[in-house]
């Protein structure tokens, strides 16, 4: 049976070389002719030595790209690489089956799985589409009992899955769930009670249902190994006394992110127990009840000052800005600050940010206005990543930030690598300026919230701005476009975006040419997500040469027909072509509402819900 390749994105598909295998076989054949097994052993020995050496060497290889290349050298290398791979990354859980993965990689310690496509986060797909963790946990429970770490993104995990995880892997250490759903506090309770070696439990932007179970109390008694506990997305009250006791008996705890049900007074008590924290999510950052006049407020400033290792601060879920000065002592050490839930003004921000000289990552709400961004630009010379979220995420709201703040950032923060910027108005000039001032940009995501909105000064499409970005930012790998865009913008992307791997398009382009430019021009393209753009079957066909190199293509509310998609499905047998209807829509309109297609070694999946048709 031909060996199948693991389906990581950077790989070209090509058969392994069989040469070495044949020569080994020949050698063995010659030897078995002789009488003594001793001779046979001798002739196998050099190969064995080689494999041992290889195994030792390959242990050091960590990059999965390098590993994928190494596994292609010959069967021997393929085998040894598979034995030495300890971290398995699968970018699309449907690209390869659990059985195949566990058959090839038997000694995996860490599993990293991604499920749903990103647009599912914005309600563009009915729930229960798939990406179930269940078959994976069952397969790995049987085949890889040494699994210690699971990282899941956009997968559905049930309470039973969490129970299986805790029960099947004795030394289980780390669970990270990002944008996951399907489980609740009762599943967490079972999980933490049975995972005695647990070091990391990180729940990030996940939906956790409130089963009214006190999961914090379920951590086993005695000293805990916990290094990281992140539960800021859990939207239910927790047993604070139990949490306090847990923190007190977790001497290795470095990362703690509280949810909004923890008041600032409670935060104080925790900080006093854990001054060794490096990452802190502050919870609500407001008192739990109206403080009486005579009550002594705890000395928050001293508590923060005691946390000398604190470098990453977040939370502030229901912030009372009066308490902000408490964080002054640590500003100078901060490398990461997340104010994206804090509705604060520029005036409230300035005293903080003016001390944050080392800041590299900053997430914030647009309530700080252009003025706040100017303050950031003035101080944060080391800034690498900026995300500006809207307080009011509607298309026609007033926009407190604009090209003014944007340009200020580009001028002040020259080392910028990643930006996500929501705004109501923008100009080409500002985007062009950023392309020149920040040549290190790797991620550029600009969301002009009004659809089809042009440059608000010149009235022109935003083509030139985005064109400048792909032209001048030579390291760019991720791009999200918005505003009024013609096919020209895509021509630029195809011409200059040679390293672009992820592209997000919404309400843009005029014709099929736009998509053609991209599919023909961007050889590194892995993930393409498009919505509400006028691209049809002809454009889809222009990518046939490239689809096997991509992780997925998403197109919703475009101009695709069933026939067009059917054509693709016929032409490319290793592609799974899913046509997704909205849940209540009955069958067969000719126009396809959503196309989601991805390469896979497994063919059509057997867990597709009714609203999905696989062509």
């Amino acid at each position, binding site marked *: 049976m031909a060996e199948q390749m693991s389906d990581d994105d950077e790989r070209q598909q090509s058969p392994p070389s069989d040469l070495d295998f044949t020569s080994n076989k020949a050698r063995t054949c010659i030897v078995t002719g002789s009488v003594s097994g001793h001779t046979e052993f001798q002739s196998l020995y050099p190969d064995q030595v080689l494999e041992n050496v290889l195994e030792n060497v390959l242990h050091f290889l960590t990059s999965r790209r390098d590993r994928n290349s190494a596994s292609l050298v010959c069967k021997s290398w393929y085998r040894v690489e598979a034995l030495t791979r300890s971290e398995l990354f699968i970018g699309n859980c449907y690209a390869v089956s659990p059985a195949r993965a566990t058959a090839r990689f038997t000694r995996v310690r860490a599993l990293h799985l991604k499920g749903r496509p990103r647009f599912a986060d914005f309600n563009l797909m009915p729930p229960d589409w798939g990406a179930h963790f269940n078959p994976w946990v069952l397969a790995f429970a049987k085949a890889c009992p040494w699994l210690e770490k699971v990282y899941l993104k956009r997968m559905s995990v049930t309470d039973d899955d969490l129970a299986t995880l805790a029960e099947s892997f004795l030394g289980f250490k780390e669970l990270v769930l990002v944008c996951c759903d399907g489980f609740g506090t009762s599943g967490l309770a079972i999980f933490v009670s049975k995972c005695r070696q647990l070091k990391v439990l990180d729940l990030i932007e996940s939906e956790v249902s409130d089963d009214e179970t006190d999961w914090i109390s379920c951590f086993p008694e005695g000293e805990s190994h916990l290094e990281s506990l992140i539960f800021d997305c859990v939207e239910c009250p927790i047993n604070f006394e139990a949490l306090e006791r847990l923190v007190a008996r977790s001497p290795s705890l470095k990362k703690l992110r509280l949810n909004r049900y923890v008041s600032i007074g409670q935060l104080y008590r925790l900080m006093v127990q854990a001054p060794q924290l490096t990452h802190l999510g502050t919870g609500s950052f407001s008192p739990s009840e109206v403080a009486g006049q005579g009550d002594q407020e705890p000395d928050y400033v001293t508590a923060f000052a005691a946390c000398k290792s604190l470098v990453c601060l977040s939370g502030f879920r229901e912030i009372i800005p009066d308490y902000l000065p408490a964080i002054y002592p640590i500003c100078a050490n901060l490398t990461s600050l997340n104010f994206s839930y804090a509705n604060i003004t520029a005036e409230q921000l300035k005293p903080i940010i003016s001390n944050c000289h080392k800041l590299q990552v900053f997430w914030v709400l647009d309530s700080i206005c252009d003025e706040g961004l100017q303050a950031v630009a003035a101080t944060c010379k080391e800034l690498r990543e900026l995300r500006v979220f809207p307080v009011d995420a509607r298309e026609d709201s007033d926009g407190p930030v604009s090209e003014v703040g944007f340009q200020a950032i580009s001028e002040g923060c020259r080392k910028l690598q990643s930006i996500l910027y929501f705004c109501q108005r923008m100009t080409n000039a500002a985007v062009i300026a950023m392309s020149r001032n920040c040549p290190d940009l790797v991620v550029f995501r600009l969301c002009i919230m009004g659809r089809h*909105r042009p440059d*608000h000064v010149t009235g022109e499409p935003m083509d030139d701005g985005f064109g400048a970005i792909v032209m001048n930012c030579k390291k760019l790998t991720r791009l999200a476009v918005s505003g009024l865009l013609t096919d020209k913008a895509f021509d630029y992307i195809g011409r200059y975006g040679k390293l672009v791997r992820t592209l997000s398009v919404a309400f843009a382009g005029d014709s099929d040419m736009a998509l053609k430019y991209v599919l023909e021009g961007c050889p590194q393209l892995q993930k393409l997500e498009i919505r509400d753009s006028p691209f049809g079957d002809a454009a889809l066909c222009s990518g046939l040469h490239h689809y096997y190199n991509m992780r997925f293509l998403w197109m919703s509310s475009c101009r695709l027909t069933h026939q067009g998609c059917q054509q693709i499905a016929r032409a490319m047998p290793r592609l799974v072509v899913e046509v997704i209807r909205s849940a209540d829509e009955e069958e067969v309109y000719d126009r396809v509402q959503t196309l989601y297609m991805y390469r896979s070694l497994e063919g059509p999946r057997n867990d597709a819900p009714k609203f999905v048709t696989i062509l």
Partner: protein
Amino acid sequence: MESGCSKKLLDLIPQEKKWGFIENQNGISHGSSEEKKLELKLGPPGEEDEPLVSFGYFSSMKSNAKQAHNKFPPAQEDHRGGAVLTASWAKNHHHQPKPPNCSQKRTAPGPVVGWPPIRSFRKNLATTSKLASESPTSLPHKVAIERKPAAPETRGKGLFVKINMDGVPIGRKVDLKSYDSYEKLSTAVDELFRGLLAAQRDPSADGPKQEEEKVITGVLDGNGEYTLVYEDNEGDRMLVGDVPWHMFVSTVKRLRVLKSSELSVINLGSSKKGKMVQN
């Protein structure tokens, strides 16, 4: 035909009106140089660098994609040459400010699903955090903080609600559409939890059940060790069994199986006192 059309247009359109951007009413400011760029020309569009901007737009309000599209491609072809790619960016380089309608959907007045692309948990900041920052004295009490309501899911044609039982950490889900009476629901509760409850009582029994499982009965009439309650769409806790079945199904949000001895402690729906039959 075309020139005839444009004469009519000239008559209709006042000079100072910014007619090229009627559909974008959102605070776009234009200088007067803007208007110069938008001057009407009498030639057919598509053959110059600056064709009539709104020609496609006005020639038929229901301008379908094909028609508008045919007018503009020649301009695109010109742009494919090398000229565009020199460094003279915004100033010299006049695009036709195409009516965005060209081959795209009109900017609809109503909100669009999933746009702007913000995840739902980031969306309610305008209200909740504003309250916090504006009024330091009237603080949101933790007790009153709205929890995400446990809404029933409809998978296909089922109606799944969560059900938890006292003493059992793992919750389950039941599909209410597959029952048509309280009796059937009660049986289902027994089936779902009997094994789990036994396992809780004797955690070492993970093989064949050593201790016989106790059947869970009497959840509806108050006679059993456990009682079935539910949370309705107003957030009130109610005893199960008092309203007609179909009414129950339409208002239930989640279920709980509570120890009957705990019932008096629990604050059942206060507006429906008549239904609080304590045992």
